[in-house]
């Protein structure tokens, strides 16, 4: 228990001095002869005068009672009251016009009382600050290293200016690595403002390259006005090394956003790479098939409102089936009559896209529909102070690569894939050797449309789900396929990532809209130079 006392005194000395010493001075005897059990001190809060409360609170924190943290938390949240009749200290939560009271330590329910029956144990701002520090102090000796770490981080963030000796002592009893590291950083931070240039210099050595904002600001101050020119120069070096690091991580972050945009483009375009690239069908309703996938996600979440966490796992196959079936229906009903007439196909599928858009407007509503992110898709993975990956973007990137890999395998290894490619390369010959080309056409189109549906599930996690969802992606998807080279899955793969990353690199200096326009202009010019895209298909069969 030596550690407990040490830590608490450290905390108190470090942070409590300025705020609480005056009250401590005012009532020295009370503290020295403080009652020893938690119940007693808590009970004394009911009758304590306002200026006695801080001292009592500190007494509570010094006890070795496990219940003290919960009590202090309730106090911090302003939930500690006393009943006027019995002068009993209770925890009270307001429910409309009444208070739900319970025992402040045991949590035993004591029923509802009127607002007049209780009085609040007053907590002002400086006491609140003390409470936070005391709770952090308690957390410092928690068994869980994570809790200790956040406590240290909290303490360091509260501008540590006093006695480095105490931080040194804290360090000697800490066993966990990350907590020790945090303490080291705190120490170095304190050293930065010490009188001794050697200490300041050593601290700079340690902090160089650290990305923490507080630390960066502290170093900047040294770099701007340190009396010792050597230290100042060193601080400038440290600062520039931090700046370099921040810049580097900035690039990594941009790259990540680029990859993420690329993955979205790839998902949106991959179905088109099948229907347009392999079959040569211009499907302007592709965007609406994506939209159907997103609406499927919405329907799945509405049907199983209690299992949002797994809704996406259900939605992916469901969207594949829904969009795939729509695709097959479109192919069998309309497109198959238009093979060899690409311009007419373009018009007819545009008509389909209008009908599908109006269909969801009529069935659902013209407004956007809410699709929720499961918990595992929300939030971000914070690698360090300046670099974070959003989970939804990360998972979609991974998902996109899995889908692409599965599709490549399907086309390479399975019978269906081989038949699809055979029909694409030479329809007459494929028919002659017994491939049912009509059947293959329907399935291929269904596959491409199903992939659009899957893209819709992914997009529902990133953007609004509304009737115009598909329109936003149709031009982009065509650009990707045309850029990458028609009839070539890898072309689509590289095309989408190249376009995605280029777009994100250009965005900071050009702005989002200009970046997009420049990309479009670039593709238009690129197509002039290289009409068959990045990876043109070669061979006699490809000449029209």
């Amino acid at each position, binding site marked *: 228990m030596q550690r407990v006392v040490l830590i608490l005194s450290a905390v108190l000395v470090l942070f409590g001095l300025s705020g609480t010493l005056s009250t401590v001075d005012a009532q020295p005897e009370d503290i020295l002869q403080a009652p020893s059990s938690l119940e007693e001190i808590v009970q004394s809060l009911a009758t304590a005068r306002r200026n006695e409360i801080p001292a009592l609170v500190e007494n509570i924190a010094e006890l070795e009672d496990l219940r003290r943290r919960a009590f202090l938390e309730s106090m911090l949240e302003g939930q500690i009251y006393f009943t006027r009749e019995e002068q009993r200290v209770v925890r009270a939560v307001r429910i409309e016009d009444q208070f739900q009271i319970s025992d402040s330590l045991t949590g035993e329910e004591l029923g509802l009382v009127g607002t007049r029956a209780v009085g609040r144990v007053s907590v002002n701002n400086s006491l609140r600050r003390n409470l936070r520090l005391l709770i952090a102090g308690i957390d410092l000796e928690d068994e869980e290293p994570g809790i200790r770490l956040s406590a240290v981080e909290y303490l360091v963030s509260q501008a540590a200016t006093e006695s480095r000796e105490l931080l040194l002592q804290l360090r000697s009893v800490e066993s966990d690595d990350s907590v020790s590291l945090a303490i080291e950083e705190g120490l170095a931070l304190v050293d930065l403002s010490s009188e001794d240039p050697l200490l300041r210099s050593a601290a700079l050595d340690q902090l160089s390259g650290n990305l923490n904002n507080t630390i960066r600001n502290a170093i900047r101050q040294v770099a701007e006005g340190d009396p010792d020119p050597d230290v100042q120069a060193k601080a400038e070096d440290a600062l520039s090394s931090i700046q370099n690091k921040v810049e580097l991580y900035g690039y990594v972050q941009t790259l990540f956003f680029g990859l993420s945009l690329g993955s979205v483009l790839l998902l949106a375009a991959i179905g088109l790479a099948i229907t347009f690239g392999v079959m040569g069908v*211009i499907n*302007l309703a592709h965007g609406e098939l994506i939209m159907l996938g997103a609406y499927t996600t919405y329907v799945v979440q509405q049907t199983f409102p209690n299992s949002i966490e797994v809704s996406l796992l259900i939605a992916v196959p469901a969207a594949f089936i829904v969009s795939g079936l729509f695709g097959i229906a479109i192919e069998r009903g*309309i497109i198959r*009559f*238009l093979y060899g007439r*690409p*311009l*007419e*196909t*373009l*018009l*007819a599928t*545009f*008509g*389909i*896209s*209008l*009908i599908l*858009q*109006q269909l969801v*407007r*009529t069935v659902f509503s013209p407004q956007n529909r809410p699709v929720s992110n499961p918990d595992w898709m929300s939030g971000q993975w914070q690698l360090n102070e300046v670099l974070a990956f959003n989970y939804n973007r990360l998972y979609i990137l991974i998902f996109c690569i899995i889908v692409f890999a599965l599709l490549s395998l399907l086309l390479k290894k399975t019978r269906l894939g081989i038949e699809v490619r055979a029909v694409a390369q030479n329809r007459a010959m494929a028919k002659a050797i017994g491939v049912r080309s009509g059947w293959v056409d329907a399935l291929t189109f269904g596959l491409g449309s199903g992939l659009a549906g899957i893209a819709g599930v992914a997009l529902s996690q990133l953007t609004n789900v509304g009737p115009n969802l598909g329109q936003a992606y149709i*031009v982009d998807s*065509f*650009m990707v396929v*045309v850029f990458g080279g028609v009839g070539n899955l890898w072309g689509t793969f590289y095309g989408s990532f190249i376009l995605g990353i280029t777009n994100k690199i250009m965005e900071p200096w050009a702005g989002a*809209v*200009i970046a*997009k*326009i420049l990309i*479009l*202009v670039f*593709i*238009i*010019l690129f*197509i*002039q*130079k290289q*009409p068959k895209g990045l990876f043109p298909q070669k061979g006699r069969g490809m000449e029209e």
Partner: protein
Amino acid sequence: MQSKSFIIETLQGDTGGRILIAVLLASCLIFPVFNLFVPESSVFHISTYLVTLFGKYLCFALLALALDLAWGYCGILSLGHGAFFALGGYGMGMYLMRQIGDRGVYGDPLLPDFMVFLNWTELPWYWNGFNNFGFAMLMAAFVPGLLAFVFGWLAFRSRVTGVYLSIILQALTYALMLAFFRNEMGFGGNNGLTDFKDIVGFNLQSDVTRAVLFVITGLILIFVYLFCRHIVKSKFGRVVVSIRDAESRMRFIGYKVENYKTSVFVLSALIAGIAGALYVPFVGIINPGEFAPLNSIEIVIWVAIGGRSTLYGAVLGAILVNYAKTRFTAVLPEVWLFALGGLFIFVTLFLPKGLVGFFSDVKEKMRKKA
């Protein structure tokens, strides 16, 4: 007399064209007269609303004519004609904007309202000269023509054809839309150009101005129709049709295919630009929405429904589809997109030659029976 014989010669064997011109001439007479001189109480009165509405349709017909020239006769399915139309419209819009003078909300004698709103202090250089009607009209045709020339020169030389061409033209109009939505472009951003007051000194809101505009639009449509008909009947036109049907063969014979295609495309863009310029005074606004890819695709459907490579089919299609659109969106707004989508599918599947082709097929059958 020479011009008369020219017209007769041009319309030889073009029954549809003759009917069309007769109808157009008649409407140029009927609409203004029945609007201006027949009292409102009379059943025969044609309201200014209808004059404006049909004036708009005539502009669309002109636009459809432009597309039919490129698509029907040269095989260039442009999904970007809306861009040429809108650019022409902006040319007219800029002229009308300058005519507002100090009657704007902010009363600035030089700067249009939106520029004052953006705290601009001087007119961007590209707005200079647009207070002159002749210059503005020249630009309204020249800028779309120039864009078409640059684009066509690049695209046709590298033999970008068919679907690829359609898609990158769509990307072009999409990019222009994004650009014109930006306030920094100096074209009024999102809101576009509006609040026009008068045109060459005449109040835009007055019935007489509207009627005159209607007549001018009708006459221009007739003139452009004759011009297009003349072109497609000429040797040049025959070469262009051959290029549509067998591009490689024409190239092997020794024709400079890309020059022919670029010429037709530029011509078509010029006409689209003129159509856009005529359109703006009728509707009183031009905004970036005109660049939307959907608009360009709608033009294609007008031509497809009317019947392509007939010229008069395009005019018929534009007027019919737009009339249907006006009716539908007024009565059953939800149904319009269903109907339009259905039309696309129906026409491509069952009426590959459009309405005009359908009627001539029916006539053919009747004749055989008889």
